[in-house]
């Protein structure tokens, strides 16, 4: 299965597993986009991946220490996420699922806001309307639901003339993230139906990490998931999602086309969830160490490091990145430990925007009730 996909002639790949430049035939048309990247940007890609992996590992540990309710690691999926998120323009809107820690932090979301969600302090975490969050929407846990929200947002861009105007500062697009398991949900289908019907400026970004908890992707589909898009008339491409350059390039082109009014596109990024599904999961129950080893050799960070080393990056660069990542992760730990629980009252505060007598009454009741225990509840 993994071998087959490796040699899929339609796969876009730029870097071999060891980081040497070795574009697949399908990658040819994307090379100019990659060649246009300055060294600083290549270094940013690498830095992004290392930083968020350090954060991700830290969060996993924090969960083990009982600081978080749950943590779904992004470990292994850094290239697909960095490549796609760096391809987006500031005015684009991003709709993550729940494992897009890399995407979110790149766009400006404070990792502590993701932590707050997974610690059980909030169901959201950050404010998508705050410019500092780079139009990154909050996580959606009901699989596939966000694909429709993204499509609706894209319809709004069409109706507001924010797409296809030819003005690169004005034209915008949406990108929505979902998984191989989620692809089976009816909502994803309906999102593709609406997207093509309204010609939304939209990229459907599927991270096929080969597993939906314990269920292999072969249960969701016997054929490559990338083929779905064509059924709706959507140009679709399959990319090596562990290759940050390829992931960047295919997303960049797809978003550019979408923004310029050519309609929705689909990308299947082949990657691998190197860690557990979440900290509650034990992958040894359902997958082999051979498979894990196969993918360990395709680690997206090692690959990009090989590439940068091949281009002559200094050892000190890598050391700097590692040190900065460690500091970043450490800072998250410190701030996590400082988090405090919200007041019970807050659960009533935002159910409605306008006054609601029943909620108001229960809010008051709880306040009075809690007050009646002043000096300690049994």
């Amino acid at each position, binding site marked *: 299965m993994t071998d087959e996909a490796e040699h899929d002639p339609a796969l876009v790949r730029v870097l071999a597993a060891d980081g040497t430049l070795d574009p697949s035939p399908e990658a040819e048309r994307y090379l100019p986009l990659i060649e246009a990247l300055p060294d600083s940007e290549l270094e940013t890609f690498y830095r992004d991946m290392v930083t968020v992996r350090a954060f991700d590992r830290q969060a996993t540990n924090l969960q083990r220490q009982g600081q978080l309710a749950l943590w779904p690691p992004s470990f292994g999926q850094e290239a697909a996420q960095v490549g796609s998120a760096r391809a987006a323009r500031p005015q684009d809107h991003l709709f993550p699922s729940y494992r897009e820690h890399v995407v979110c932090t790149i766009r400006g979301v404070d990792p502590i806001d993701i932590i707050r969600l997974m610690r059980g302090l909030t169901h959201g975490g950050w404010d998508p309307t705050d410019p500092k969050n780079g139009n990154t929407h909050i996580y959606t846990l*009901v699989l596939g*639901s966000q694909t*429709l*929200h993204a499509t*609706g947002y894209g319809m709004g861009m069409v109706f*507001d003339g924010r797409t296809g105007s030819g003005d690169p500062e004005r034209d915008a697009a949406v990108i929505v993230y979902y998984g191989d398991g989620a692809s089976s949900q009816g909502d994803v289908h*309906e999102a593709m*139906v609406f997207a093509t019907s309204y010609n939304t400026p939209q990229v459907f970004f599927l991270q096929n990490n080969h597993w939906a908890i314990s269920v292999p992707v072969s249960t969701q589909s016997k054929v490559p998931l990338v083929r779905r898009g064509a059924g709706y008339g959507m140009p679709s491409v399959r990319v090596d999602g562990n290759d940050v350059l390829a992931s960047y390039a295919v997303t960049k082109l797809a978003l550019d086309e979408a923004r310029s009014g050519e309609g929705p596109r689909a990308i299947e990024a082949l990657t691998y969830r190197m860690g557990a599904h979440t900290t509650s999961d034990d992958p040894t129950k359902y997958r082999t160490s051979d498979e894990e080893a196969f993918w360990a050799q395709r680690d997206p960070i090692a690959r990009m490091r090989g590439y940068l080393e091949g281009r002559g990056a200094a050892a000190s660069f890598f050391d700097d990145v590692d040190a900065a990542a460690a500091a970043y992760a450490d800072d998250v730990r410190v701030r996590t430990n400082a988090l405090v629980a919200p007041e019970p009252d807050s659960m009533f505060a935002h159910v409605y925007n306008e006054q609601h007598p029943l909620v108001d009454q229960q809010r008051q009741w709880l306040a009075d009730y809690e007050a009646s225990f002043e000096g300690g509840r049994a």
Partner: protein
Amino acid sequence: MSVETLPFSKALNAGMRRAMQDDDHVLLMGEDIGRLGGVFRVTEGLQAEFGDRRVLDTPLAESGIVGTAIGLAMAGFRPVCEIQFDGFVFPAFDQITTQLAKLTNRHDGRMSFPVVIRIPYGGHIGAVEHHQESPEAYFTHTPGLRVVSPSTPNDAYWMIQDAIASPDPVIFLEPKSRYWPKGEVDLAARALPLHASRVVRRGTDVTLVGHGAMVTVLLQAAALAESEGISCEVVDLRSLSPVDYGPIVESVRRTGRMVYGQEAPGFTSLGSEIAATVTEQAFFSLEAPVLRVSGFDVPFPAAKLEGSYLPDADRILEAVDRALAY
């Protein structure tokens, strides 16, 4: 002259037209609502007037309609979705319940979701399965939604505008058997607030409460009761969530007896809630338990049997008599 006589459906149409004129981010979406004007013609003429970017004939997928409406709300629109019939809202139930209802809360109030979902509901039209149901309990049980149902053309005209103006999601239930009867609509004077209930007939012996098409039945029952010397007060709920208990409890404190009428199956219904809560609030005034007259706890039957299924004035009166016999 600001008072016009309009059928309920045209009053709704006029209300939506006005909301669309006032705010160009109000848009309508649904199946067959554009060129056809909807299977009940409620949106007739609006696509011709506002164009197909504001009145959308969507693909045939209810989850898609509500899910994309959510995205449109995020992008600053105020979508008004039409579900073609009551029984076809369930494919959208996940988007309504786990998304629309909860998204304001999930965003800690930083985004609002002013989506209206219009649903023609209820029986009396002799239609096939899935076309005559009263699904209000599913929505009133869901925190984060507001649920309303007008029973007169004037309320239809004003409440649809208030629902569209609301920053919260509103399930807007349209009693389809009331689409055709006409009534006076005052285009200048706002009706009661969206979430107010209203005493539509004064009485002293028994309080009758209901919403939508049931209000007509309750008024018929009250008229019949009067001929038997029983004085019924009738309250039109108008808002199903939240419920404006003020007028109801005030009435029950006077009458000591209450009958709640609804087309929906009775078990775990809005009627159960109102009976339980009124009992709590007016316990010492009650001479009899609050009685409920409901659709039976069976699937809405084939059209030829709807007359036996739907509570009519006789069945309301039977309960009135039982309440008085306590």
